[in-house]
């Protein structure tokens, strides 16, 4: 990520991170981004919080100071009920918020382009200047782990993944490899990954907190997202927009592997007996709560399946949710639980 005054941001970090780092290293996923986009987003957060924090502390400080100084018991202080207007103060009270908002607006616009899901500039920067891309917060914070390049970030051909959500599972299609999975997303480290997303039923939201921010997944429509993962490891992805009874179980693991391992994984999936045709997709799309996040692999995918799903939905195809799986209180829910 290339903030022009990235230095200031890095300095400001020291005022802020220890606070949260102190709480717990574990679990605060947004604070420890492992992807280029997520890191840009976290930078923006820090900057915004620092700027707004100053304003809020000043305002809050004024309130507290005045409360203390002018409390009724304190008769030493001047009481002046005629102090009800002041041009200088008026200019200040409008001017300061105006300046702050102006400053933040500038950063907001910059960061919007940097994280634009359709064409994130921060990815471009990461690709052009891999050595700079890594000077983000997380790595500076722990030099021991610092790696100066995103391995493989120069790769020209991005990995393409098509994502289809059903009630309530994830179908990941790898058109370049001709394979597909349910609830298993594997990507090589340092590679640009481009997602196309759609839903067979209702709206979901694609979110991998440590790697990339959210993008809505809407039926009959296509949205996009892109990311680069910096570190190998297992991350958690899930839907972030309520989609019905199985929503809480709509998680998937994201495994970021090195390139050799990725190729090995692809070969393994290619050996799977199952094949993803539109008819097979129809079975998967039947309302299912995949409680244990059981993954399935498909060695082949019907060509154009993703577009076909969109077209069918636009033509009126619905995967109805049975009454017993919605807010029905009178008859117990009969769920297709995948154990």
């Amino acid at each position, binding site marked *: 990520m290339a903030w022009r005054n990235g230095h200031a941001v890095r300095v400001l970090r020291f005022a802020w991170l220890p606070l949260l780092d102190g709480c717990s290293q574990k679990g605060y996923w947004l604070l420890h981004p492992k992807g280029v986009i997520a890191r840009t987003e976290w930078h923006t957060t820090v900057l915004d919080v620092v700027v707004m924090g100053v*304003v809020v502390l000043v305002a809050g400080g004024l309130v507290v100071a005045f409360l203390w100084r002018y409390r009724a018991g304190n008769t030493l202080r001047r009481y002046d009920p005629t102090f009800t207007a002041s041009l200088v103060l008026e200019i200040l009270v409008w001017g300061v918020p105006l300046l702050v908002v102006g400053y933040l607006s500038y950063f907001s616009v910059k960061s919007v382009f940097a994280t634009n899901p359709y064409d994130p500039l921060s990815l471009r920067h990461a690709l052009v200047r891999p050595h700079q891309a890594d000077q983000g917060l997380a790595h500076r914070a722990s030099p021991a782990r610092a790696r100066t390049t995103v391995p493989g970030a120069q790769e020209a051909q991005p990995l393409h993944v098509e994502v289809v959500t059903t009630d309530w599972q994830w179908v990941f299609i790898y058109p370049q490899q001709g394979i597909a999975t349910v609830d298993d997303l594997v990507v090589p480290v340092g590679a640009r990954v481009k997602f196309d997303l759609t839903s067979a039923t209702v709206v979901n939201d694609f979110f991998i907190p440590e790697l990339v921010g959210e993008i809505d997944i809407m039926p009959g429509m296509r949205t996009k997202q892109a990311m680069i993962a910096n570190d190998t490891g297992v991350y958690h992805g899930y839907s972030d927009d309520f989609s019905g009874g199985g929503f809480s179980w709509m998680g998937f693991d994201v495994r970021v592997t090195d390139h050799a391992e990725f190729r090995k994984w692809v070969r393994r999936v290619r050996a799977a007996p199952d094949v993803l045709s539109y008819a097979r997709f129809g079975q998967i799309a039947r309302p299912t709560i995949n409680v244990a996040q059981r993954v399935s692999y498909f060695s082949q995918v019907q060509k154009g399946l993703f577009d076909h799903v969109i077209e069918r939905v636009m033509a009126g195809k619905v995967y109805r949710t049975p009454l017993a799986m919605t807010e029905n209180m009178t008859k117990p829910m009969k769920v297709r639980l995948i154990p």
Partner: protein
Amino acid sequence: MLVSYPGPWTPFFGRLDAQQIPLQNPILFWTFVLVSLGGVAVLAAITYLRAWGSLWREWLTSVDHKKIGVMYCLLGIVMLFRGFIDGVMMRTQQAMAVGPRSPGYMGALHGYLPPYHFGQIYSAHGTIMILFAITPILVGLMNIIVPLQIGARDMAYPYLNAVSFWLTAAATGLVMISLFVGDFSHAGWVGLSPLTELAYSPGVGVDYWSWAVQIGSIATTLASINIIVTIIKMRAPGMTWTKMPIFCWTALSTSVVGLSSFPVFTAAVALLSLDRYAGTHFFTPGLGGNLMLYTDLFWIWGHPEVYYVILPAFGILSEIIPTFSEKPLFGYITMAVASIAIGGVSWSVWLHHFFTMGAGPGVNAFFSIASMLVGIPTGVKVFNWAFTLYRGRVRFDVPMLWALAALVLLLIGGLTGMMLAMPAINYTVHNSVFVVAHFHTMLNVVGFACFGAINYWFPKVFGFRLDERTGKRAFWFFSAGTFVLFGSMYALGFMGMPRRIDYIPFPSWRPLLIAEEVGIVLFVIASYYMIKQLVVSIRDRVQNRVTSSDVWGTARSLEWLTHSPVPFYNFAVQPHINARDEWAWRREHGRGAESPEHYEDIHLPINTPLPLILGAWTFALGFSLVWRMYWLAALSLIAIVVLVIARSFQDDPGHTVPGARIREIEASYRNGLEPAGAAGDGAGGPVAYPGAVASRPQDNVPARP
């Protein structure tokens, strides 16, 4: 049939059958038992006290703005309690259902609530809290205070006012009955599209939600019209725009926002209902429908709606803080301008609720900047309140405590709002509990302001103070609960926890979820003290009687000029306004209310049961539509139309209270007695005043500028 849905349908009962009463669910069964027992107890008490007659004459049929306001507030507080219980249930479920090994009870895989029950609870919680708790309380407060602050006898349209109230009550009734007959929606207070479509929500839940919010929003639109007209047309002579109290400015701004945004919601929900009843495709994913159109329309209302609730809260703070700082508000003009500006900007920011939909960076940048602009007038307000304290004499009475804590919350909520308004940040916390924490911080600003307002104006309306000791305890526990609960929730937001999950897949979230549960326990204690405060205050009402018109001694605006409790005619003599803070001006100039030799007759509107009846038919309409009992729906619709038309032909002659009677009441106020019949007994009703004569409205027009 135009649409297909599972389950039987009969012409008479529609989709309703005995199985729809889910008493086999232990939670609902015991709720039902408790509610029935409570209901029977209340009815028995009313009967025992022989209060039916006076209840009917003085409250249920009243068109007096103060009584309607009190009923609004009561309704809101009852619903606040219901919504709170929902909150307790959700927090408990989330604290229990952590990790794959957590046990499940009562049919749930984890925790004690299965997904479809949890979904209903959070949807009901949001819908109730925003539309049927906070909104009625605020409308009630505006109802009570606005006419008093501008020196009017009543609202511009007293009858319409009662209609608004009873429609709100009907809508609330629909939400409540969905507990025991059928189900409520699981698609959130926002009505997530296309989840609300028949294909994905085939039950009656969404219909309950849609008809309830439909009726509620019509009621609020009407209330907005009433408040706007009242403020524009009914100000006392001498009250120019720049002499109007800030609370009225915010009430005006909020009502303009309400009037201009609620109809959008009405339209959006009507289109959704067409989808669900007539098989149209406005918001379906396929066949030409556009589900994002719903999202757009919803937030074009939804965002202004959140400002609809915050603006009166700002007004309340602007009344309380000067009173307890013994100083006029700092920067009055700025505050008025900021109130209008917030209302104005609130119109152009709705897209920030779905930055993640994949709009281009240009669109997101525009709405990001627009959203941040709201921060400017909001910041201005905070600074002005701070400078109001400057060189004041600050006392920490209960209303002031609530107001100051609201200020702190506003700062926190503003900070997080400015975070959410940046798309790059929003992508990481949208739809997470961070957003939930943001708007609970903000809505708690409103809640705190309302509690402050209730403590502040209670003596004015009822003539005795609320107990201070229990009030302070309630305040401290409530504040502690707020910080513990929502502090933890913000932290969980940084962990990426989504909102609306009934099962927590990651055990690393457990400690903070337990902290939230601790927060909710603090809230439970706070509500115990709130109830205790009310009980203790009513018990000690004689000691806590208010004898002067201004309990606080340092209040500033016009409502403190008239007696406490406010007589049914508000002001015996039409006040003439000399200054911005009229009551403070009079106090400083040693002038109280005028007490002339001769009191004019006062003309007031007549009570009528029609709004109540309209409300009852509207409830029937909503209920029958939910269950698709089309004959009853048609019947209720016809009844409503006929009643409305019939009423428009009916002359409302009003009634006149003779000056002699006013003199009696005023004299007894001055002798320190609570005059019989001044605050209550048939206020506005011709029956209660033997001397009252019906007269034509033009005989004695109520006070107008």
